[in-house]
């Protein structure tokens, strides 16, 4: 199995993100995900452009497809896509839109944008890998706290917990943008269904790394990455 040595994309990311100028509407959500994405791709995920089709690769599914600027920048920083693609976001010939399309962008595991689809796809991906005896790859899926409003997520949360789907890690970036909040906290929705959960400072890379590599056998794992309010 191919492994990826830790890298550090910090120096390149700000410049790459600035090249994505056409997505102002979703700018706050782009920046909400940048730290999680950087830690995942720099230090956690075992996937490279060379292993982007390897059945043994780790999967990262961006469920919250809004504001993918940070995602595209991280993919460019890690060589999945050319830097030049960042200069024409949502242009007529661009492969990068305001929501990513897996058939257009190398390294993108799912097309997303409509909220509430990634977690179900992630559960199915984890089950498909398990059914084929592929027990090493983990499946990571990133959601937003407001995205959890969609009921489809709760179908997946309950089922993944009930079936001990321990190759699954969900990350909820929490910038307090859910219109009605989550009384009792986000993590409780998962832990009551049998998930393990870590709630961490979403800007603290060491805390994120520890949480993203956490979890216990026979439990799906949740990381709540709390960041400043969307404001």
């Amino acid at each position: 199995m191919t492994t990826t040595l830790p890298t550090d994309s910090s120096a390149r990311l700000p410049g790459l993100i600035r090249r994505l100028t056409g997505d102002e509407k979703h700018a706050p959500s782009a920046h909400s995900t940048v730290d999680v994405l950087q830690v995942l791709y720099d230090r956690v995920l075992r996937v490279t452009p060379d292993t982007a089709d390897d059945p043994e690769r780790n999967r990262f599914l961006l469920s919250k497809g809004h504001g993918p600027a940070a995602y595209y920048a991280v993919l460019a920083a890690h060589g999945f896509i050319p830097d030049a693609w960042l200069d024409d976001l949502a242009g007529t010939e661009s492969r990068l839109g305001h929501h990513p399309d897996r058939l257009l962008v190398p390294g993108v595991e799912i097309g997303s944008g409509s909220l509430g689809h990634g977690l179900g796809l992630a559960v199915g991906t984890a089950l498909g890998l398990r059914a084929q005896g592929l027990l090493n790859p983990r499946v990571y899926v990133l959601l937003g706290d407001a995205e959890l409003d969609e009921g489809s997520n709760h179908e997946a949360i309950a089922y993944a917990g009930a079936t001990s789907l321990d190759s699954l890690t969900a990350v909820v970036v929490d910038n307090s943008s859910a219109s009605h909040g989550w009384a009792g906290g986000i993590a409780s929705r998962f832990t009551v269904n049998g998930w393990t959960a870590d709630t961490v400072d979403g800007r603290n890379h060491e805390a994120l790394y520890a949480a993203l590599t956490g979890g216990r056998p026979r439990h799906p794992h949740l990381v709540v990455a709390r960041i400043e309010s969307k404001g």
Partner: protein
Amino acid sequence: MTDMRTAFIDTTTALLDEDPRTALVLADISASQFASAGHRHPDRVLNVGIREQLMIGVAGGLALTGLRPIAHSYATFLVDRAYEQIKLDLDHQGVGAVLVSIGASYDGSAEGRTHQSPGDVALFDSLGDGWTVRVPGHPDEVAPLLRNAATSDDPVYLRLSEQRNAEAYPDATGLRVLRRGLTNAPLVVAVGPMLDPTLAATEGMDVTVAYTHTPRPLDTPGLRALANTDVVLVEPYLAGTSSALVSRALADVPHRLLALGVGQTDLRRYGDPADHARWHGLDADGLRRSISAFLGSVGG
């Protein structure tokens, strides 16, 4: 005699045993009938509970890893309720699945509107032209159609019904002529379980009756070869579902089209499927009245 649902369960059970690529996703419906298959293949027989959005999302994820998912429920839960998951978790991801429904149109007559989905085929039409839609008219057509679907990666909808014809025609992917009229006779196309009432309705009429269990893709070359001026469609789902396809296929040919099928209106009545067939004009008498009036209206 076996019914379509049993044929589906038996064939899927065999596919799970034979082909490690086959996976089944259920939302409680028919779960007990797959219990023994589930004991043999716990990683590939997945009952997500009463969660149809998740059922299609899981099917999409399974397909992304290279498996061939079969997902199954009542048409209204499988298709209507999970429509956006079909659109996005399958189509938009560029992956396929085999979706197998029961409870076609008014099979669930006693259950009422909540258990009926006469618009399911129209919903697949709204997704573009990628879906193959199979509407078997006899239980013996189910196994070959399901096995064919399981070997591909394409999106396939298999619409099972409790309504059935006396004879099976497994090879009727294209239009198969079962009664040939004289020169320039009107063409009557019957889809799936509409064949027998159509044959009964047109007894003694000078028409050509052609049958298919595969309305998508519709056999438009066959249609062009068989059609003369008058064309009648008899479909077991919403009336007019295939009208646009027929009109496009015959765009350069002067023709008249009568499209029969399930009416748009929720009747808010129970009863049995035969009652609904009568109320929608899809029993032999009703079809005969509609077809006679249409054909007799030529030239006033």
